[in-house]
């Protein structure tokens, strides 16, 4: 009996060793460059392009989730608010409102704090989702600790291109996050581990995922998104608010956002003949403090009706 036990145990050892050898082939390894190293690499990197118009824009497929390469191999540009690795996209030539969800994963005590820049057809900045508009999202077993924001863009002459990068001010900040041990304690009803939560440095590189969805097909997504989304601010307003990037931890998106975005979205919905969506948007705008949006929509409907 003992000999047979030993034989089976040795077989098990051999199997697991083989499995280990097989895994030496890279498999889903997420390389994370240490923050200091990526900052040094960024300082030495060459600007890819003289102007925003020269950035390498990729086409963006709606309805897909894609991992963005934001490592030291990504293109670098010196934006007006600092040098950064970036990814740039040409928005689909649709006038339908689109919902974007951008998440940046916290790994190894660091995170890429994104800024989203929207350019018009002449490559001039028109809107911006700054890093302080990204919420900290707790790990929940289905996804790790991360920064995330959801925002709506209606492609058109004023919103033709999207650039995702991280500005210099954001990289001075940090994000406090929940450790795996604390998550376990929280969901099992254990005493929470004492001591402060760990802190993630904002890094020049990171793991960022971009998801997009057409609002026409996004009925199921609509409700949760409307509940937590951020808004693409006008460039003018955001510039004055960049000092907030210095805040150590991320907080929820500011409540005071212009109704510009809502009315654009409502216009787009009306153009698409989707009055129900327009009304939902108006209601949501009212609830978020944009009083008058409902009346404005009623007026719009009156003007286009016989």
């Amino acid at each position, binding site marked *: 009996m003992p000999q047979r*036990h030993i034989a089976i145990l040795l077989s098990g050892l051999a199997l697991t060793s083989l499995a280990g050898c097989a895994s030496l082939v890279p498999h889903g390894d997420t390389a994370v460059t240490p923050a200091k190293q990526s900052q040094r690499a960024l300082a030495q990197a060459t600007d890819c392009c003289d102007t925003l118009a020269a950035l390498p824009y990729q086409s963006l497929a709606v309805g897909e989730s894609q991992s963005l390469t934001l490592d030291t191999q990504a293109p670098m540009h010196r934006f007006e608010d600092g040098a950064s690795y970036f990814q740039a996209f040409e928005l689909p030539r649709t006038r339908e409102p689109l919902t974007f969800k951008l998440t940046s994963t916290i790994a190894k005590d660091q995170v890429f704090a994104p800024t989203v820049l929207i350019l018009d057809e002449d490559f001039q900045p028109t809107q911006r989702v700054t890093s302080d508009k990204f919420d900290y999202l707790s790990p929940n077993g289905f996804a790790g600790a991360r920064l995330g924001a959801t925002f709506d863009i209606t492609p058109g002459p004023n919103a033709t291109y999207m650039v995702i990068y991280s500005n210099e001010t954001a990289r001075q900040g940090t994000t406090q996050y929940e450790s795996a041990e604390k998550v376990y304690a929280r969901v099992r009803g254990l005493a929470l581990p004492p001591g402060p939560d760990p802190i993630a440095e904002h890094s020049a590189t990171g793991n960022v995922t971009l998801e997009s969805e057409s609002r026409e097909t996004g009925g199921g997504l609509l409700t949760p998104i409307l509940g937590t989304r951020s808004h693409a601010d006008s460039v003018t307003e955001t510039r004055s608010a960049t000092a907030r990037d210095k805040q150590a931890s991320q907080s929820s998106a500011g409540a005071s956002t212009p109704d510009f975005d809502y009315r654009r979205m409502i216009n787009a919905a009306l153009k698409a003949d989707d009055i129900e969506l327009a009304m939902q948007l108006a209601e949501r705008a009212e609830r978020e403090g944009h009083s008058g949006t409902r009346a404005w929509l009623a007026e719009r409907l009156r003007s286009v009706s016989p």
Partner: protein
Amino acid sequence: MRDSRQFTRRPLLAALIGASCVMPALAHADINPNFFGYARSGIGSTAGGGSQTCFKAAGAPAKYRLGNECETYAELGLGANLFDQQGTTFDFASRVAYVTSQSNDDESLKGDDNNIALREMFVTGTNAVSGLPDGSTLWAGKRFYKRHDIHMNDFYYWDVSGPGVGISDIDVGTGKLNFAWVRSSGSDSDNLPDEDQRLSDDTVDVRWTDIPTNPGGSLQLGVDYGRASLSDWQKDYYDDAGIDYDEGDKGWMGTIEHTQSNWFGGSNTVALQYATDGIITSNGNAVGRSTGSLEQEGDMWRVLDSGHVWLMPDKLDLLYAAIYEDKNMDDDSGRKWFSAGVRPVYYWNDIMSTAMELGYDHIEPQSNVAGYDGGDHHLTKLTLAQQWSAGRGAMIRPTIRLFATYAKWSGDAYEEQLSAEGYRQAHALDTGSGPNNVDFNDTDGLTFGAQMEVWWGS
């Protein structure tokens, strides 16, 4: 065509706009449910035949769990933030636990080895009591209350969960104060005329937590006092029967615990506990609450150290635990228990890892123990597991693992004679941890199988 569509939509628009006049009042009634929980399940066999045997030293309150869990166990929880205004929040949480012997597809939850249990149903009100420091939380209902455990052997050493009420996390500048009153119940079927007549045990739990001591270190101190709350007729009955209930129903437990974070990339916890009389039992695990017994007298010392460290950053980490417990019962039914274990895990990449768990339990019974080997006995368990997980780290889940476990113990596994019900009786091995498929006189055993483990919740 266009006109007709607009004609049909205008009344809808009017209705919605009309209805929306009342909507702002309901805006904060939106509920985003929080789904949280824990689960483990798998399949296993014992070399030589039969389903998986799980190895636990008889008399020990815990066993090293990697590759050594024979049941499907799950906790499914639902909760929600119900109110959040001007800094005051009310949250609801509930949790149902399920256990089956994982022997069939269709398993009743009312069978001998199976169960469904309501474990939590409570509401917390943070900053609900004015005048208390920010973060103070009033709560009521049944709940898991600030439980302390060692994950590697599933050993709970401070756990006064149950129905209760309390106020927690009162920031006093140096740490936080927590007060709770919780209930557990027993039944004295040997003495009371009706075994359904319950003995209500009350425990008062007072903790001073988060006391800063050194960089990255914090201390917590706690006292639990429990006693049976006898009704007048129960007291009369015991008085008439000449049963002394004055001492055995009462007991207290004191806990001093220090946790060090920034400890080789992880943390270390060391705890010292002392408990008396009604808060301990000879066979059960002393966790700080009353036990439902009237005549239990003795005391218990327990010291433990456990933690998690990274030996090679992102490549090799280690869970470890060491426990010494001396339960000295007046009727000599106690025992000493020493336990130590390590679980190093090597991470081949972000997904796959190899884990090894080595655990040792030693039991030294007092002279009057019943139900298992009355002499010193010990159990050593070694498990090797190949794991696939959602990331690196000892506390990252979900995990799917293939495992092989070898265990060796002193003396016969079980008593040769079956119990009156035809079940095997414990000797060196406990019989309550699942199927008992090694021979009664075996001194070692090998099992293998697969298991998943997951927890989640935001």
